[in-house]
């Protein structure tokens, strides 16, 4: 991989980011709906108070001026001031990001491990009973919407039995030492993470199965068997590595998307993450918070795809040569 290639890729990355950010800004400002209007209606403001709000939020400037101010602020790390919470957007997003990363990170790790494992198991026993059952169950789980799976789990674990908490990230008013708090969060994490894993591991298992079945029919697998390598070495060290390419793509897409917040799961479980933040910001026309969230989301998608491009280069010599 040459330096020139890397440079070119990085330049494309920067351009994509800039265009996304600008489109992001424009989109939210051409949407009908003034945040001051909404605040005023529910807040019983006088006309004078509303005029002051317009000034405070800089909504009295022409669009171009607002855009320039926005870009300038962003370069200095200032993502603006939330209309609703009256604190910097970075503060509002800060805790939400942490919560989402915790949930999504855990879920992604488990998803990949479990999904790939089942996929390999399924592929190595292709067209047999275990393969059929895994495939059917995976299809079933993958087609169920997140919130539906979540509600079933809530019913089983929170209503029928009371083994796990079904809402929030920690028990309100909990007084405990650090380990106690970690355990408390872990307990709250189980159900939402399980929901995500159930649905998405299924997807990964299906992709892996298909990719592996192809890889296992290759000539080098036959050669490896002839050489006397153990089954586990052939499957896990040779075939899987070559089957990894579609899995890498799927992972990159998945991670990029899911950083926007697993909104359905977050809503069902009242998990205070990015998805929920985006949803409530849209409702309240909190432009700065929305712009901040979408910036993060766009960056995540673009960056993960960039990384996946590079990883592809490293994984597959054929791509590198071209």
């Amino acid at each position, binding site marked *: 991989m040459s330096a020139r290639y890397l440079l070119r890729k990085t330049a494309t990355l920067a351009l994509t980011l800039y265009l996304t950010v600008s489109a992001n800004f424009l989109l939210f400002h051409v949407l009908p709906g003034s945040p001051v209007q909404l605040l*005023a209606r529910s807040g019983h403001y006088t006309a004078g*108070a509303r005029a002051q709000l317009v000034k*405070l939020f800089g909504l009295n400037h022409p669009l171009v001026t607002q855009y320039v101010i926005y870009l300038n602020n962003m370069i200095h790390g200032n993502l603006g001031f939330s209309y609703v919470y*009256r604190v910097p957007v970075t503060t509002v997003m800060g805790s939400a990001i942490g919560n989402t990363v915790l949930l999504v990170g855990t879920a992604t790790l488990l998803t990949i491990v479990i999904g790939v494992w089942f996929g390999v198991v399924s592929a190595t026993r292709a067209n047999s009973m275990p393969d059929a059952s895994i495939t059917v169950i995976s299809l079933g789980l993958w087609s169920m919407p997140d919130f539906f799976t979540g509600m079933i789990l809530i019913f089983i674990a929170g209503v029928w039995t009371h083994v*796990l908490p079904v809402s929030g990230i920690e028990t309100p008013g909990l007084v405990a030492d650090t380990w106690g708090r970690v355990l408390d969060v872990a307990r709250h994490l189980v159900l939402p993470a399980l929901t995500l894993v159930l649905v998405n591991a299924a997807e990964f298992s299906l992709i892996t199965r298909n990719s592996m079945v192809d890889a*296992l029919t290759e000539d080098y697998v036959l050669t490896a068997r002839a050489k006397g390598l*153990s*089954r586990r070495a052939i499957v896990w060290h040779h075939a899987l590595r070559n089957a990894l390419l579609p899995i890498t793509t799927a992972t990159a897409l998945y991670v990029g998307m899911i950083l926007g917040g697993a909104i359905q799961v977050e809503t069902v479980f009242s998990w205070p993450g990015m998805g*929920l933040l985006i949803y409530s910001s849209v*409702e309240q026309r909190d432009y700065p918070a929305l712009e901040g969230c979408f910036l993060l989301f766009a960056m995540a998608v673009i960056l993960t795809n960039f990384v996946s491009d590079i990883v592809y280069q490293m994984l597959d010599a054929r791509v590198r040569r071209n």
Partner: protein
Amino acid sequence: MRDREMGPQQPILSRRRFLSLTAASAGAVGIAALGTPSQAEASASATLRVGWNSPPDVMNPFTFTSTASNEILWLIYDTLMTYDLELKPVPSLAASEDVNADGTVFTYHLRPEATWHDGKPVTAADVKFTYDMTAYHNLGQAAWAVAEYDSSRVINDHTVEIKYKSPQAFDPALAIAIVPQHIWGSMSLTKIEGYANPHPIGSGPFTFNTWVSGQYVQVDRYAKWWGPRPAADSIIWIQYDNSDVMVQALTSGQVDILTEVPPILFDGLTRDSGVKTVEMESFSFHHIGFNVSSNPKSGGNPLLKDVEVRRALQYSLNREQLVALCLAGRGSPGSVLLPPSFGAWQEKIPLDQQFNANPEMAKSILDAAGYKMGPNGVRQDKQGRPLSFRLIAIETTDVDVEAGQVFVKAANAIGVKLTFNTLDATTLSNTVYNAAAPNWDIFIWGWDSNVPDPDYLMGIDLTDQIANNNDVYYSNPTYDRLWVEQSTTINAAKRQEIVHEMQKMYYDGAAYCIMWYQSKLQAYNTSTWTGWTPTRGGMIYNFTRYNYLRVTPL
């Protein structure tokens, strides 16, 4: 690869077996640890837990807009006067109040023992500062109450005199939370407007503890509060984004009371033996609004400006039926601006004189006004313009959407065509409130009264509220004059007469078709706390904080 490999014999405990066994047992231990309820699940006996699904926005008493913030802030801060459980004004931070004969000068005697949460004493200077800031700078929620503010005078440390330019029938002291000057006094106006107030310091019965965004807010009892000691050590408001889970939390004892129970879930809860559901009168209504703007740029259908058309449309609807269909019976049929919770203030129009449930009358009114039946079953005026209007409602307000569907059918039966569209809340608000050129015909929406005083609801549709609260662009100089008169009439009996006259006048004008007054639905767990007293407007999440102060743990 289907055939099995013939490998070497596995020893009893190979490295692989050992690893998998360890993993399995670690997993089992982990699950067991997670499965055991933690100690803190059984909450401290005197922590009151409230469940809700609308979060606070900011803890700044000058800039908050959400009802949730109001609920919390009214326990952290005190007002000079407050509402008791019968919604009567009683002294709060002020030990007593003197009002002069014509109601323009209010003198408050503060409690000498009142202190701020940081230990400093509450003085008259704090009151003057709060009033000046609110009135002179038009700050937030309470600004409307002090529109006629003149000035305040500090007489001594614990006595303050507040002057208004005209008599005040509604005592603004009920609406203004007193803030400490030693904290806010040094801030510029811009700073205050943008200030998040992360550690609010008030004089109220509870101090701010923590706000975990998106999850819960906690306040703790203030040991040095001037009033009778509340039994709750702390109060925690827990946010649920899922109503089903919230209701489950109540029945399983994880929360003690819910601020609002959706009507669909209310009936199911009523059958639960561990929960007491309470239905109370609210100070709110839902209405159909007709665009009666006289602005030449208005895009509203001019045929709606004919009062006969509006009255006919009202006659086509059966309010009882609306309550039964849309609210599952949890409410009462609508008529005038003030809901029945206002008691004697509400104008009672006899049923046979109401524009209600009489499609035949609707048809004869339209016939007499010259709207003959045209093609496709839609009436037309003499110029051939059809009675065809656009109807909008908020898509997430299920009750409004249902009412809209009923309305479309009812209008159709009398020869009026309604084209129904749903919008999101903000878009609807912006469409309706586009004062420069309002381009809509009919909407379905609602109002909640800011205070249990007629001033607020009667004052929505004043001429000078066009471009602010007036959502139908109603303009009637007589109505405006009467409003000023009632808001400055101190004698309750005389004031009531004027308020009755205003309601009748507005009703006849038919700019609003008030569909129903919805009930306030709340529920509490019967085995954790006791002493919840049903109150007009709601036990909590409304005008009085006495339920928070009076309940005791079981």
